[in-house]
């Protein structure tokens, strides 16, 4: 009975409720869902997750790079600080040296000026002394003349110039 097997199969499928129309309906339901989810969820969501993963990786890489650069900048900064400190010390030393030189120079100058001024003062003093002496000599001459005139009032003509000169010489001593 070759026709009996398909018939029995059909009967079994009927009893189980399996029907090709319903099978297709359910398959279409599934296919519809797969298409909708693929278009609206899987593609965009997986792309977004990939993009975000790439961004995170890029961000981490950049953060590492930034850390490295920061470290480099820090090192450069420290080197510059050290250089600046060295320069500052050198400048201080040079300034100290210059100041010392300036001090010495100024002191020398002051000493020289002092010497000059004291020399000038001595010269001025000498001139003044000379002037005073001359004035005194003049006055003394006048006084001596007057004294001699008084002394020899009666005969002023007899006053000997040599006597006057002698008197003046004596007054100097």
């Amino acid at each position, binding site marked *: 009975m070759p026709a009996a097997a398909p018939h029995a199969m059909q009967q079994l499928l009927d009893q189980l409720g399996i029907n090709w129309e319903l099978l297709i309906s359910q398959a279409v*339901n599934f296919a519809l869902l797969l298409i*909708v*989810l693929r278009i609206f969820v899987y593609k965009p*969501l997986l792309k*977004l997750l990939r993009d975000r993963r790439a961004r995170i990786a890029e961000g981490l890489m950049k953060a590492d790079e930034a850390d490295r650069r920061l470290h480099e900048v820090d090192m450069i900064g420290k080197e510059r600080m050290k250089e600046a400190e060295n320069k500052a010390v050198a400048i201080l030393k040079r300034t100290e040296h210059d100041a010392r030189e300036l001090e010495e120079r100024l002191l020398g100058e002051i000493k020289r000026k002092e010497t000059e001024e004291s020399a000038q003062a001595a010269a001025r003093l000498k001139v003044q002394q000379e002037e005073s002496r001359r004035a005194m000599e003049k006055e003394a001459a006048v006084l001596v003349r007057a004294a001699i005139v008084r002394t020899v009032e009666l005969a002023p003509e007899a006053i000997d110039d040599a006597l006057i000169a002698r008197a003046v010489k004596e007054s100097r001593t």
Partner: protein
Amino acid sequence: MLNISLRAETIFHIGTWPITNAVLLAFIAVLILATVAIILRRKLAMTPGMLQNVSEVIVEGALSLMDDVLGTREKSERYFPLVFTIFIFVITSNYLGLLPGVSSIMVGHGANAVPLLRSPASDLNFTLAVALIAVTTVNIFATIIFGIKDRISVFLNFKGPIQLFVGLLELLSEFARIISFTFRLFGNVFAGEVLLAIMALLAPYLVPLPFMFLEVFVGFIQAFIFAMLTLVFIELAVTPHEGEEAGH
């Protein structure tokens, strides 16, 4: 009294095309998931909101699980749509089948009264359709990778009697997979429905509650098993067998 039927009941026709209560609920599941998908698509942003956060956690978790089986993220992303759609469709259908009103809201009168909605997986057409799609797609994936000649040679190998026998066993195992996929899911969900109906009939208050929790668990586990088995079959199909590797 309790009316238990293996067959899903036809509730209306579109032209001559019958629409059963199981097809209707499966379609409602598709509509709900499609709506959520469209809302999610509109709200997708680099800084995620709550819905996107939840979706990303689920998708990342599923992808990590697939990575463990398939080995690489690239492979996981390639086969993710099929595996995840099976999971989400089956679990949504199972949970919709547990809602109040399903199997209890009737259409028709008297002896012709039938439930308006029925859990899709308690109809063999649903489980068989998903099983057929899963097994067929797995074979398509393998054919894309190895070529049609190599794929056929897995089932029909005339190099020797042992190879021929192994090939025929492989062919038989494909059908066995379809049957096991179909009846495992159908059996679990249908048995759960019957169990809940009987418990509700015997003790309507509180007593069915633990069984409801059991069905929530079973609904998840069955969807997970279906998706995981599909994933394992994909891995088996797309991984070169010993001796073939040199050729590919």
